[in-house]
C-alpha cells in the first residue's frame, strides 16, 4: 500500500518538477531516487510497516505475493531507468512528463497486483492503460507511432468494454464485486457467472497479449518509441499476469473445469503463433514483440495450473524475462539499424554489451544457469502435473525459440558487418548492462533470493 500512494505522489512531483528543474539529469536523478524510496518502503511493508493506516474496506489486499511482485516490478523499473532513461530524450522534449506517466502506470500496477475488488482491478487497468496510450503516441511526428497509439487506444477500449461487461455480469451473479470464492450453488452454475468468467478471461487475455487476442501487439510494440515498448512489454505485462492469476485463483477456482480447457487452448495457440511468427521476423524489435507473445504463452501456464509451483515460477519469470527484455531493448535504442544485420559484428566493437546480450538471449531461450531456465522449469513442472502434452508442446516451442534468439548471437559473434558503423553507448552503459546480465545469471543459480521473500 505504501508504494501505491507514494508512486502516485512521485508522479505528480515529477510532472511539476519540469517547471523548476531545467537540467534533465536532475530530473532523472530525482526519478531514480524516488524509485529507491519506493523500493525501500515496499520492502518495509513485508514486516507490516505502513506509512499510514487507512480503511480500504477490503478492496485492496497486499499479501506477500503482491508485494514480491511489486518489488520485482520496481527493481526492473530501476534497471530500466538506468539503462534506457537517457534514451527518452530522443523521443521528445517532455522528459519529466514521460517519467511522471511511468510512475502513474506504476501506481496502477500496484492496484492491479493487490486488488481484492473487481472495481479496483478495473480502475488499476485503466490507470495503467491511459498513460500507455499517451506514451505509445509520444513520438508525435512519427506516423507509425501515431498509428500505433490509435490502434492501441481503440482495441484497448474495446477490451476494457469486455472487462466492464464481465464485471457487470459478475455483479449480477453475486451481488458484490469481491474477488472471493463463492460456494453458493445458485452462483456457481449460473449463466451470468459463466458469461462473467469468459468475458473476464478474454479481456485479461487481451491485456497480456495472449493469442488469439494478440493482434494489436506487434504493431503497437513496433510503432511505439522503443523505450516505451520496453516498459510495456515487461513491467506492465508481468504485473497484469499477476492480476490474471489472482483473479482466476481467488474468484473462479470452482469454475475450474469451465475455463481451464480455454486457457489450455490459449496456451497452445499463443506458443505456436508467438514462436513460429518470431522466427520469420527481420526486425529485432518485431521479433521481440512476437517473443513477448511467446513468453506470454509460458506465463499463461501459471493461470492454467494455479498451484504453488507455477506461482513461484511466475515470479521468477517476471524477474528474468523483464530484465532480459529490458536489456535487449536498451541496446536496440542505440542502434541505427533495427534488423538483425544491425547487430553484425557487435562482439568485436562492444564485447561487454555483446556478452550481456548473449546472456539475455540464453535466458529468454531457457538455457540452464540463467533465470529464464528455472522460470520455464517451474512452469513445465506445474503443467506436467495436469497435462503432459501441454508440457511437451511448451518445450518443443522453447526449442523453436532458440531459432530467433540465437540469430542475435550469430549476428553479433559470427558475422562481420559490411559497413562498419561505430555504435556509441553512454560511458556507464556497458557496465549497467553487465550488472543486469549478472542478475539474470544469479537468478538462475540462486532463485531463493526471490522465492525466499515469499516465505521469510
Amino acid at each position: 500500500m505504501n508504494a501505491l500512494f507514494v508512486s502516485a505522489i512521485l508522479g505528480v512531483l515529477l510532472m511539476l518538477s519540469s517547471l523548476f528543474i531545467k537540467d534533465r539529469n536532475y530530473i532523472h536523478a530525482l526519478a531514480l531516487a524516488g524509485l529507491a524510496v519506493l523500493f525501500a518502503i515496499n520492502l518495509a511493508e513485508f514486516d507490516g510497516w505502513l506509512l499510514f493506516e487507512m480503511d480500504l474496506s477490503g478492496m485492496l489486499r497486499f499479501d506477500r505475493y503482491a508485494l514480491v511482485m511489486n518489488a520485482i516490478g520496481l527493481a526492473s523499473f530501476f534497471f530500466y531507468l538506468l539503462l534506457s532513461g537517457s534514451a527518452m530524450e530522443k523521443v521528445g522534449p517532455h522528459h519529466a512528463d514521460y517519467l511522471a506517466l511511468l510512475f502513474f502506470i506504476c501506481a496502477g500496477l500496484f492496484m492491479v497486483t493487490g486488488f481484492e475488488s473487481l472495481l479496483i482491478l478495473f480502475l488499476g487497468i485503466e490507470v495503467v492503460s491511459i498513460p500507455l496510450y499517451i506514451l505509445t503516441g509520444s513520438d508525435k511526428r512519427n506516423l507509425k507511432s501515431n498509428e500505433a497509439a490509435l490502434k492501441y487506444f481503440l482495441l484497448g477500449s474495446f477490451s476494457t468494454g469486455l472487462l466492464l461487461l464481465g464485471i457487470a455480469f459478475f455483479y449480477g451473479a453475486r451481488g458484490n464485486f469481491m474477488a472471493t470464492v463463492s460456494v453458493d450453488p445458485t452462483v456457481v452454475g449460473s449463466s451470468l457467472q459463466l458469461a462473467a468468467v469468459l468475458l473476464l478471461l478474454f479481456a485479461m487475455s487481451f491485456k497480456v497479449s495472449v493469442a488469439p487476442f494478440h493482434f494489436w501487439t506487434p504493431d503497437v510494440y513496433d510503432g511505439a518509441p522503443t523505450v516505451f515498448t520496453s516498459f510495456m512489454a515487461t513491467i506492465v505485462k508481468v504485473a497484469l499476469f499477476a492480476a490474471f492469476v489472482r483473479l482466476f485463483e481467488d474468484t473462479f477456482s470452482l469454475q475450474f473445469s469451465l475455463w481451464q480447457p480455454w486457457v489450455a487452448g490459449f496456451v497452445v495457440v499463443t506458443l505456436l503463433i508467438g514462436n513460429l511468427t518470431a522466427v520469420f521476423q527481420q526486425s529485432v524489435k518485431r521479433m521481440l514483440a512476437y517473443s513477448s507473445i511467446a513468453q506470454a504463452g509460458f506465463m499463461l501456464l501459471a493461470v492454467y495450473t494455479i498451484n504453488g509451483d507455477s506461482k513461484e515460477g511466475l515470479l521468477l519469470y517476471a524477474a528474468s524475462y523483464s530484465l532480459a527484455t529490458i536489456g535487449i531493448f536498451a541496446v536496440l535504442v542505440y542502434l541505427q539499424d533495427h534488423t538483425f544485420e544491425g547487430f553484425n559484428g557487435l562482439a568485436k566493437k562492444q564485447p561487454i554489451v555483446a556478452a550481456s546480450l548473449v546472456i539475455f538471449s540464453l535466458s529468454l531461450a531457457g538455457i540452464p544457469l540463467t533465470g529464464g531456465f528455472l522460470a520455464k522449469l517451474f512452469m513445465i513442472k506445474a503443467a506436467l502435473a495436469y497435462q503432459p502434452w501441454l508440457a511437451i508442446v511448451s518445450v518443443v516451442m522453447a526449442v523453436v525459440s532458440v531459432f530467433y534468439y540465437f540469430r542475435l548471437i550469430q549476428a553479433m559473434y559470427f558475422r562481420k558487418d559490411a559497413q562498419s558503423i561505430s555504435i556509441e553507448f553512454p560511458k556507464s552503459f556497458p557496465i549497467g548492462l553487465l550488472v543486469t546480465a549478472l542478475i539474470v545469471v544469479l537468478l538462475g543459480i540462486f532463485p531463493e533470493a526471490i522465492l525466499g521473500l515469499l516465505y521469510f
Partner: protein
Amino acid sequence: MVVLLLLLIPLIGASFLFLYKGDHQFASTASLKLSLVSLLVMCLRLFCWHTPEQLSFTAPWLTSLGSSFSLRMDGLGTILSLLTTTAYFLLFWYMRSRTIERPAAFFAWLLLAQVGMLGVFLAMDSLLFYFFWELALIPMYFLASQWGGARSVSVTFKFFIYTFLGSVFMLIGILYLQSKTADHSFALESIKKIKLTSDQQSWLFWFFFIAFAIKLPVFPFHTWQPDTYEESATPVTAILSAIMVKMGVLGLLRWVLPLFPIASYMWGDVVMSMAVAGIVYASFLAMQQVDLKRLIAYSSIAHIGLMTAGAFALNQLAYQGLLIQLFTHGINILGMWILADIIERKTGTRSIDSLGGIAQHSPTLTIFFVIIALANIALPLTNAFVGEFLLFAGVLATPSTYYWAFAVAVGLGIILSAVYTLRMIRAVFYGQPSARTSMAIRLALHEVGALVFIVGLILFFGICPQPLIDMTADFSKDLFGQTDITSLFRKS
C-alpha cells in the same frame, strides 16, 4: 573434495582467460599448466585418494526444488575423468605449436567445456546433470561456430538445435521422475527407489534415450555429426569426438539402463538394430569419403554404434568392454584428429586424393599414424583390442533372440573398419608423392611429445589392460546387478 577440485581448476582458468586477453603464448601455456594440474589431481585420486569422503561432494543448492549440488566419482566417473584430463592435457600440449585466432577466448571456451563435461560425468543429481549437460553445449556452440570453416555457423546451429531438442525431452523425463519420488528430490538415489511400471519405463526410456542418441550419435540421429566434425576447427572436433560423445554413453550407463531396465530389455532389439545399422552404414560411407576429416567422422559413428550395441547387450562382459573402450577410443580418436590436423596444416589439404607418398619424406609421422590407426581398428596388442574384444563377446552373449544377426553386423563393421583405415593409410602415405607432399613434414617438439605420449598409452594398455579393468570392474558388476533381466524377472 577431489571432484570439486577437478571442476574448479578449469573453471578458474576459463574465467581468468576470458578477462585477461593474453596472446597465444600466454594462453596456451596457462591452459597447458592448468590441464597438467588437473591431470596430476586425477593421478593423485588414482593412487592416493580412495575414501568416499574424498570422492564425493555435496552442497545444498536449489533445496526448495529438491535438488542438491551432489557429485560423486564412481568407476564410470573415474575412467571418464581420467580420459578428460588426459585428453585435455595432450591436446593443449599439441596446441603449443599450433596457432589459432583469438587464442585467449578459444582456450577459455575449451576449459569451460571441460567444466561442463566433467560435471556431466560426476553429477549424481538429475537436475545438476541437466545443468552441466547444457553447460557443456554452449562453449561447444561458440567454439565450433567461431573457429570453424565457411559453413560452420549453420552446421553448428543444426548440432545445437538437435542436441537441445533431445535434451528438453530428457528434462520432461527428469521432472516426471522427480514428481514420482517419495521425497520430491532430483537425486539419483531417490529416483532409483521409484517403482515404475513397464509402460512408464517405456516412454521415459525414449524421452531419455533420444537425448543420448543424438549426442552419441546413433543412426538415424547422426546427420549433424559428419558436417559438424568436418566444419569445426580440428582441436574442437577432437574434443567433440573424444570426450563429448562419451556424455551420451554415460547417459546410457548411468541413467537409462539402471533406471529403466525393463524398457531397456524391451526396446533392446530396436536400439541394437539402430546401432548395428549405424555401424554398417557408416563403415560403407567411410569407404567412399575423400575428405580425411569426414572419413574419421564416419569411422567414429561406427565405433559409437559398437559402444551402443554393447550397452544394450545387457551383460557384464559387454559393460566391462564398453567401460574400457570409453577411455581407449577417446585416446585413439584424439590421436587421429591430431594427426589429421598436422597433415592438413602442413600440406594445406585434407583431400585424400591430393595427398600420397608422405611416407617417403616423413617416416616419423608415418609411424605415428600407422600405430594410432591400427589401434583405432583394434589390432591385438593395442589398447582398443581388449575393449572391442569384450564388446564383441558381449554382443554374442546378449539375451536377444537376434544375437547372431547383431554379432554378424558388428563383425562386419570391425572388418570394414580395417578396410577403410588401411585404404586411407595407403592413399595418404604410400604411392607417389604429389605436389603437396613432396616436402618433408617436420614435426615440432610439442607435436612429437603429445604423439609419443599417445602411442605410449596405446602400447601400455594394449599389453597391460588390467589397471583399466580394475578401475571399472565394480561399476560394471553393479550395473549388471541392476539391469540383469533374468534376475529382474525372478524377483517379480
